[in-house]
């Protein structure tokens, strides 16, 4: 158990900066997820914590100890790799025992710990098998087992589930969470999958181009994205963005754009310091008139159904609003036909506004 502190970490590969002035405190026992698109520097950051990569500047502290000059073996970490990286010439038992043997753990203790981990992960029947005789899911369990027998201060996981098929990934995600709740260890978990990030993380660090965009618990990230990148990255289908201009309309502030308008709550409108904004609205916050609840007249506008994606439990309607396309998420009863004209309103309490140039959120 330990906290991990990254202070002003920068990493350059030649002229390319992979990580730029990265500051983060991962609290003891916290499940922190680094998420972002490929090439955002999340894996590099993890490898710097592990000691597999040396930072160009800045410091890493694990459990209050500065580890910059320590090799991976002295950092008390365990790492799980995306492609498992099992030792192919050793059977499952030896793979899991490898780290303990290097530390001269007594054989009885090794056997006890490996058996215990194997029991937790359900791989006891495979202990004598070679990695090549295992399925992908089993191999990933062995890789996890290899990490947990060591009882490290920090678990580092580099996209451990992304090589598994969708069904297995969902299952392993749950098992990994159970394992985390049982061990209560500090975990730093790297993924490009926002669903994994949302479901697993105590806190999420969203990265882009080597820089932190936002650090927040999942719900806060979803409800209060710091900028357009985070708003667009978290959530599926992504948030809709529409350029708009603010104007006063009889004491109210209205954001109006090409083919739509939405009245902003006064306390939120006061946060905007320029007339031009980008309005952001999540698909579930677009209300499509189905006749059951009359929409208030002044906030509604006309849209044309472009494409319909029925998913069974919900339907995505892609709507043409002015010259833009927005995606609305409605219940199965709200299904429409392409070409149909509908009345639409945005939920004014859930609308976001961003600075059009910097992308920073006003609210």
């Amino acid at each position: 158990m330990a906290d991990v502190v990254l202070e002003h970490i920068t990493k350059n590969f030649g002229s390319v900066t992979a990580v730029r002035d990265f500051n983060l405190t991962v609290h003891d026992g916290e499940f922190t997820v680094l998420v972002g698109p490929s090439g955002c520097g999340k894996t590099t950051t993890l490898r710097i914590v592990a000691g597999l990569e040396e930072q160009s500047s800045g410091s890493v502290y694990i459990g209050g100890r500065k580890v910059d000059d320590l090799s991976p073996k002295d950092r008390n970490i365990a790492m799980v790799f995306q492609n498992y990286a099992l030792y192919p010439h050793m059977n499952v038992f030896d793979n899991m025992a490898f780290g303990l043997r290097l530390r001269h753990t007594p054989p009885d203790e090794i056997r006890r710990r490996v058996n215990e981990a194997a029991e937790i992960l359900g791989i006891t029947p495979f202990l004598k098998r070679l990695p090549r005789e295992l399925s992908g899911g089993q191999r990933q369990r062995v890789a996890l087992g290899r990490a947990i027998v060591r009882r490290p201060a920090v678990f580092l996981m580099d996209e451990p589930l992304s090589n598994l098929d969708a069904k297995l990934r969902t299952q392993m995600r749950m098992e990994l969470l159970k394992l985390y709740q049982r061990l209560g260890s500090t975990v730093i978990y790297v993924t490009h999958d926002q669903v994994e990030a949302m479901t697993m993380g105590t806190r999420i660090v969203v990265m882009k181009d080597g820089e932190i965009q936002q650090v927040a618990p999942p719900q806060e990230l979803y409800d209060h994205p710091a900028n357009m990148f985070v708003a667009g990255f978290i959530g599926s289908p992504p948030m809709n963005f529409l350029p708009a201009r603010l104007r006063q309309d009889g004491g109210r502030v209205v954001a109006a754009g090409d083919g739509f308008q939405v009245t902003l709550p006064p306390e939120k409108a006061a946060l905007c310091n320029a007339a031009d904004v980008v309005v952001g609205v999540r698909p579930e916050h677009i209300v499509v008139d189905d006749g059951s609840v009359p929409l208030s007249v002044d906030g509604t506008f006309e849209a044309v159904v472009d494409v319909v994606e029925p998913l069974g439990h919900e339907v995505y309607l892609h709507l043409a609003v002015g010259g833009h396309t927005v995606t609305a998420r409605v219940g199965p009863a709200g299904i429409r036909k392409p070409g149909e004209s509908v009345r639409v309103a945005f939920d004014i309490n859930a609308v976001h506004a961003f600075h059009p140039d910097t992308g920073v959120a006003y609210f």
Partner: protein
Amino acid sequence: MRQKLRPGERAGLWISRFLIWGGLVFALFPALWVLTASFAPGMAFYSSSLIPHQFTLDNYIYVFTRTDFWLWMKNSLIVGGITATIQMLVTASSAYAFSRMRFPGRKFGLMGLLLLQMLPSTMSLAAIYTLLVRLHLLGSLFGLILVFSGASAYNIWLFKGYIDSLPRELDEAAYADGATHWQVFTRIILPLARPMLAVQFIWSFTGIYNEYMLSSLVLQSPRTYTVAVGLQRFIANQYSAHWTYFAAGATVASLPILIITMTLQRHLESGLTRGAVKG
């Protein structure tokens, strides 16, 4: 199921068969000749027919009982075995360093080794001779082992290529597990490089076992001869060349190489790293 071949394919098949058979005959004919000569009476290497009219074991009996043949074999096995082992370890560790570590001079070191190796080894004979004289090692097996023990640049390149192909994540997983460079090398890389180690051992051993020029220069007493040097003395006699003795000795001397190659064959299997990483 037997498939009908088109005339063109049939012709191609027969041409390749003839080439293979021709190659086999070409390769095996000298071996067969030596084998039959070893059972032939007399001294001459050339007899009127490939299959001698009379079979005799006299040549073997002579070589085994009247010469230091077994001593030469022992010397050859000692020099070959020790040198091949040292070469293999030096090659493997250099290749590991060149493949996995980044250090100043890495690139030029690799190129330099290769350039050095391109000079013919005969060029260094005089230098090696002088060096051994100065060190008072001339004539000793130890001196010969010392001369042979350097690794070969070609082999380092080859081995480096092999290690390059092993997934780096394995090293990293081992580092995260608490291994040092040395432990990664001995516990991860070496076991996985077994096919390469076997190949290099066979090559080195065969090369040194058959080596004549340097050995004949360094070894000066019949007690220290290797088998290649010893056998040569049978046919280097000024007045009579004992080709049939030579043939008998050569036949027996080829057995260790045959045995070693066949023993190590099973290590030459491929696919050792299967299952390591998701491929």
